[in-house]
């Protein structure tokens, strides 16, 4: 033989999918939401997003290079994704140093302390957000008022989110149009439902995620809040407001579907999604926090190994 033949076990071809492709398609799916947040929160959104991404990537690079002493894998896009998602969970007037602490918590505690991509138990971006929410409750709950092409950063006018209004018993809420297009107070990614759903469709088309988790989350919230609204329409607002407000869509589509921290079987995904939906509703309706998506997802993240253990994929020829 002229050149040596290569021997390897079958299969001999590969579909060409890669971690990078998946991460970047999620990033592309987040693009519309990002543009909306830039439109309504302007300079602040830009600063928060850029700082969050750079600090997440830097933290991951430094930890891999100097603590874990291995080849950094920042090119796989997962740190960028965590950065974007973290930014989407922050208000646009958050000071830079708090964002950097958030990135440290997200990547350092949430991800690398478990061993890196694929080994973490909790969604890193949410771990970072909750860390900040508990450490800096004041800064994390003052929301700038949306203002097209805003040039404000920390000096903008602040107001309440839809959910905090509901929590305080206020009935004068933004219109559905505002909620659909993102013209309401909140963190960067809690913006336009239309932009988020656009991203969902893209992810489904690219087969990056399956429909199970988002549909289960949204379905459970709609059902639960619908029942409560049916029982007492005055105390509990109608389900559409719950679906369109706060971080529900962002959480259901982009955070709950995180590969590493969600169950592997389809039935497991439905159970997990329903769990998130129910917990979210309980926190929103009966808890002291106005918003509960991030806590709900983190709690269900902790249940994921248990779900994986008890709910197996449907076995061929099995019962």
């Amino acid at each position: 033989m002229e050149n040596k033949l290569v021997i390897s076990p079958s299969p001999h071809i590969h579909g060409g999918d890669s971690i990078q492709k998946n991460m970047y398609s999620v990033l592309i799916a987040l693009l519309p939401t990002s543009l909306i947040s830039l439109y309504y929160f302007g300079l602040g959104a830009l600063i928060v997003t850029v700082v969050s991404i750079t600090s997440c990537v830097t933290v991951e690079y430094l930890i891999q290079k100097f603590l874990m002493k291995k080849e950094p894998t920042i090119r796989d896009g997962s740190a960028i994704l965590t950065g974007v998602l973290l930014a989407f969970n922050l208000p646009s007037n958050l000071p830079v140093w708090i964002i950097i602490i958030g990135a440290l918590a997200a990547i350092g505690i949430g991800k690398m302390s478990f061993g890196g991509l694929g080994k973490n138990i909790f969604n890193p971006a949410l771990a970072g957000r909750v860390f900040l929410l508990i450490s800096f409750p004041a800064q994390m709950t003052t929301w700038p008022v949306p203002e097209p092409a805003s040039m404000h950063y920390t000096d903008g006018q602040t107001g309440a989110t839809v959910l905090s209004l509901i929590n305080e018993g206020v009935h004068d809420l933004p219109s559905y149009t505002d909620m659909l297009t993102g013209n309401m107070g909140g963190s960067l990614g809690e913006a336009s439902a239309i932009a988020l759903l656009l991203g969902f469709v893209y992810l489904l088309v690219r087969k990056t995620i399956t429909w199970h988790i988002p549909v289960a989350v949204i379905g459970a919230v709609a059902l639960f809040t619908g029942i409560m609204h049916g029982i007492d329409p005055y105390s509990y607002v109608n389900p559409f407001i719950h679906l369109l407000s706060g971080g529900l869509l962002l959480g259901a589509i982009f955070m709950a579907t995180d590969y590493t921290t969600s169950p592997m079987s389809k039935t497991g995904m439905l159970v997990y999604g329903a769990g998130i939906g129910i917990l979210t509703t309980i926190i929103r309706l009966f808890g002291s926090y106005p918003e509960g998506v991030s806590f709900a997802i983190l709690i269900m993240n902790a249940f994921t190994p248990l779900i994986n253990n008890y709910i197996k994929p449907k076995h061929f020829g099995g019962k």
Partner: protein
Amino acid sequence: MILIAIISLGGIGVTGAVLLYAASKKFEVYEDPRIAQVQNVLPAANCGGCGYPGCSGFAAACVQADSLDNLSCPVGGADVMSKVAGILGKEAGTVNPLIAVVHCNGTCQARPHTNQYDGTRNCAIASSLYGGETDCSYGCFGYADCVTACLFDAIHINPETMLPEVTDDKCTACGACVKVCPKSLIKLHKKGPKSRRIFVSCANQDKGGVARKACNHACIGCSKCQKECPFEAIAIANNLAYIDPVKCRLCRKCAPVCPTNSIIEANFPPRKEKVTEDSKENKEIK
């Protein structure tokens, strides 16, 4: 106020202690104290080389057995066994110390690669696929399943030859590498005085010509060594020479006549004079 706190906390503590003590008495399982004593002198490697599940299993077996004849701890050796015998007041059986030897000498130079393996570097996976990167389908892959299996850091792949080498003083002859080698190239061999041993380092059962073509160090079954051996310790079967470690007296007459240098003499002093022209290479391992 403080008094109430002290009394109530102290009370809880005392009640808890009494309950725990009562429970430990009531649910105590009697275990022969000698098992723990024996276990203390064992190496606690839990390698399973003795054939029992871990050191505690072996300790229990030692205590229960009438004599220690068939019981031996390969890791601790005679030393540990005599201590065990002391604790139990039994005679320690005599055991020949063993050591793992690798029956392949197909170094990178001796055995040219004829194809390229691109699968997982794992001997078991490769062996389910084919015979290896060279034309010798009996020889060592060099993917280090034995190194992974060894609990004592006693076997390593030499990066130059890509063959596993056993470190004499670390090997405990627990047999983990023997079990794991998919080509059955590793065998337990009598350790011999001063760790000296002579063995045929080849497992190629092909006919001489075929084997020689695949590997310069292949045993071709030419029976020269058999004729040379004064103690009838060498037998030829399946195109391979086999040296019986019981009959072999380590006289070193066989190695120089081997035309392919496939007989290995380990831990002997270097030869003083050139014995024959055939042994151009120095065949000492160490």
